């Protein structure tokens, strides 16, 4: 991600971490429920410790998976913007886009930028915890101004 981009937005989505945590905990509890009886007899002596102990590692694993795969970093300046999702980074210049649309999907609001009629790029504004309506105006302004200067 270029270091020169001025504004940087990268909120940690706690609910996403919580969802991952619940999934990891469910897997661990599932292992306990479906374990062989002879092993369950040994584990049973340590209840509720066997359920409480995995909480901390689950939080850490959930946080690690979230940061590696789901965390979004968005940075922009007057000329370009960059989005990093997990390990993937994509950088675009504002002046390349022809149309700006605000789209309401099941996963929240997106700002859809059109490179051509078929080729689009989405900025997940809801996931970045930005106000979609005001930020879209900002994006419109950035696109218009970058076209004037280029």
């Amino acid at each position: 991600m270029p270091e020169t981009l001025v504004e940087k937005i990268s909120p940690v989505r706690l609910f996403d971490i919580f969802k991952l945590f619940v999934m990891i905990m469910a897997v661990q509890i599932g292992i306990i429920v479906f374990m062989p009886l002879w092993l369950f007899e040994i584990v049973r002596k340590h209840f509720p410790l066997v359920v409480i102990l995995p909480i901390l590692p689950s939080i850490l694993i959930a946080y690690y998976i979230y940061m590696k795969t789901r965390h979004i970093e968005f940075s922009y300046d007057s000329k370009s913007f960059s989005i990093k999702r997990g390990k993937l980074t994509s950088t675009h210049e504002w002046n390349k886009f022809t149309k700006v649309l605000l789209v309401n999907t099941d996963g929240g609001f997106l700002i859809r930028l059109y490179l051509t009629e078929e080729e689009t790029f989405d900025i997940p504004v809801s996931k970045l915890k930005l106000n979609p309506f005001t930020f879209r105006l900002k994006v419109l302004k950035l696109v218009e101004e970058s076209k004037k200067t280029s």
Partner: protein
Amino acid sequence: MRMSEEFLCKLEEELMVKGGRWIADFRESERNYRLGDLTFDIYLSGGTKMKGFGLFSRILSALLLPSYSVACYVIKVRSSNLVSPDFLKKLLSIIRGNAEKNHIKWSWLMLIVRDDPPSKVVKLVENHKDKEIGLLLHNPDSKLLVNSKNLLGERMRACLKLWLKKSRQ
């Protein structure tokens, strides 16, 4: 942000996320939408099929709601005196043309004015008869909302009623 921009953002939010969802699911919004020689401040498009969170609402939506494409056009008019029969005729014919081209079943046209309209303009809006286009005229300063007396106009008014009541307080 200019006051009118702030108002348009709030209206957009109301239609896409809040009260507007009672009549349609506006999924896309475009600003400064050019159609013919006119530029609409907001163009919203979507459908009548709602997507709820629960399985029950999804089943209800699939079984009971019609699957129509819909659109809502918002345009700022400098003065309500500019709203003449010819002006409306031009706007409505452009909207009808776009509806035909994009297979849009229902459309709404919302005129935003900064002064209270004279009675002849109110009558003009109220007497709008087209069943497939709802017509509304709104003054954000006085919170006046005039609507066409067809089903679409009445429904849109009902959806915006709470928002208007809240903004009056």
